[in-house]
């Protein structure tokens, strides 16, 4: 029986603080697997998902990765969806390709280089940090304040890159403040920030805290453009902020734009399957499975080493989340989309091609 199936490991945050991200990704993964299997599988083999929960804890993520590779004999592992978990899983060194749907930290893999096990299909913090900084400058923002979640790798990484790029492009960072995860009252920080005027506030953080910060900002009468990263693409954010008028002047980077061509099919089938709009995380999970299927398709016997090789060769794969090219460090070169929120409505404000991100002189 096992000859007729391809075991695909899934190592996601299904409970705990980051459960929403894991859940969304899993939905995309399941959808993709169903589609592949419905289409007759890959060379006649069906994808069999082996899903493990890592409780949003690093150590559990590592253990899950070890279990998937060492005991469940999966061909490839998808996840975890956040950087800490991925780092832990990679550190466990389990010898199976790990497809990373949404972890954006720059230095995920232990060594970098071509022989690491990590294959990332999303952009990195550097890219989105640069992109949002360039976008801000383009919009005429001169001064920015930064509010970072102190215990989040992601938040810190993005803040750093943003600050550097923004300064290089001629902007000034007027204040840098921190908050802790799980905190609920941000009046102290916000009151402090209020003392220095700024045009925009960079808030790279998870949606729970972000929603509260947005609410409290408005309650304190801070009116500034809000910039953020892909963690904002969570429908729950809109819900938690409660008020449409608070959901204005917000720009954040995202993995795909709702209007994209490729993904309209996906959006439709996702809506059919789950009765809701597909968030980017689901799309990323979906792409992971599709990429895996493609790689296996190209191999002879679906050995893990071969799959890894084929994954590394990926060029110009046009997935739901855009055109993916895996570079020599196994990172994806991808366009960064900037989404605008006005009165609770999302629209694409800009799309920045990977080539443009690193070129400081050229306009996006």
């Amino acid at each position, binding site marked *: 029986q096992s000859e007729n199936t391809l075991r695909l490991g899934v190592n996601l945050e299904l*409970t705990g603080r980051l*459960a929403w991200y894991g*859940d969304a990704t899993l939905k995309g993964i399941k959808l993709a697997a169903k589609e592949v299997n419905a289409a007759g599988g890959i060379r006649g083999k069906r994808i069999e998902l082996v899903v493990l929960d890592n409780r949003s804890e690093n150590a559990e993520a590592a253990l899950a990765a070890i279990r998937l590779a060492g005991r469940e004999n999966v061909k490839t592992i998808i996840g975890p969806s956040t950087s800490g978990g991925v780092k832990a899983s990679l550190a466990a060194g389990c010898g199976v390709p790990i497809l990373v749907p949404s972890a954006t930290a720059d230095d995920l893999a232990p060594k970098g280089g071509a022989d690491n096990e990590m294959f990332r299909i999303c952009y990195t913090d550097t890219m989105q940090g640069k992109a949002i900084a360039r976008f801000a400058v383009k919009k005429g923002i001169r001064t920015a304040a930064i509010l970072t979640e102190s215990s989040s790798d992601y938040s810190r990484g993005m803040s750093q890159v943003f600050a550097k790029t923004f300064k290089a492009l001629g902007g000034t960072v007027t204040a840098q403040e921190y908050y802790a995860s799980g*905190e*609920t*009252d941000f009046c102290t920080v916000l009151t402090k920030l209020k*003392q220095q005027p700024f045009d925009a506030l960079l808030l790279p953080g998870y949606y729970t805290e972000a*929603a509260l910060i947005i609410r409290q900002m408005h309650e304190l009468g801070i009116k500034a453009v809000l910039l953020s990263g892909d963690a904002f693409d969570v429908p729950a954010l809109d819900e938690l902020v409660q008020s449409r008028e608070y959901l204005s002047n917000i720009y954040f980077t995202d993995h795909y734009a709702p209007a994209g061509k490729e993904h309209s099919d996906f959006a439709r089938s996702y809506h059919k399957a789950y009765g809701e709009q597909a968030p980017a995380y689901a799309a990323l999970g979906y792409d992971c499975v599709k990429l895996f299927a493609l790689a296996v398709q190209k191999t002879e016997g679906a050995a893990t080493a071969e799959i890894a090789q084929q994954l590394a060769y990926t060029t110009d794969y046009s997935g739901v989340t855009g055109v993916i090219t895996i570079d020599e460090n196994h990172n994806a070169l991808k366009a960064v989309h900037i989404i605008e929120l006005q009165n609770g409505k999302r629209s694409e404000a800009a799309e920045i091609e990977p080539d443009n991100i690193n070129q400081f002189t050229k306009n996006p």
Partner: protein
Amino acid sequence: MGGWAEQLINGLAVGAVYALIALGYTLVFGVLRLFNFAHCDVMMAGAYIGWLCAERLRLGLLPAAVAAAGVCALLGLVVERFGYRPLYGASGMPLMVVALGISLLLQYTAMLLFGAGARVYPFGYTGGVVRIGSVTLPASKLTALLLCVALTAGLELVLKYTRAGRAVRAVADDKTAARLCGIYENRAVSLAFVLGSALAGISGVVYGSMYLVSPLMGLTPGLKAFAASVIGGIGSIPGAVLGGLALGLAEALAGAAFGTATKDMVSFVLLIAFLLLRPGGIMNSKSGTGRV
């Protein structure tokens, strides 16, 4: 600098929330000598009950709070009866472990029932913003402050000057002697739990309406309130309130002065400083100390 006045008021307002939660902590600790780690999860349950009332039943804040208080009181009763009561004979540690177990149980049951994501009370539920001079303050925080003062006074009166209150304290001191005075010690303990849990329910609604509701929402305020109750003088009702306010103030001022990265540390540094320099807390409560 105008910022300081604002920070001061912010601090007090946050402190009021801590104080509200700390009250229940202190009450139960006074009776059982147990740090009821499940307290903040009962609060979480209260927040969810309030949310259900507000979101699903479209009830006002007051009925929601009353419902939450009622359900939490019941929950507290059940927890006490089946979780803690079998262990009164044993030392403190098994009790503490059971408390932690109950805390986990409540958290993850909520996660199963309501999902891991956060929920929010309907917009405008707690009535907009209040302006005091140049300072803007959400009305809910003002409510918390007032509620806190009222509940403290009420609770203090009940414990000090009513027969049942004295019985509760007597049981806290010496169970056998309390029996010899005709006090049904199980009833007294249950009473303390019911009161404490009802308080937790109310604070859950206040907290939830002010911020968010989620299964793990109790963790951070729980630890802070816990620190507050120790800083104020564990076992002392006014102490819990003073401790909460002091903690809120200290956090706000330290955050404003030294950068917000230190804010979290402040509460614990304050906690340890108090323990070492004045173990009785602000109120210098004597519970647990004795003579040679």
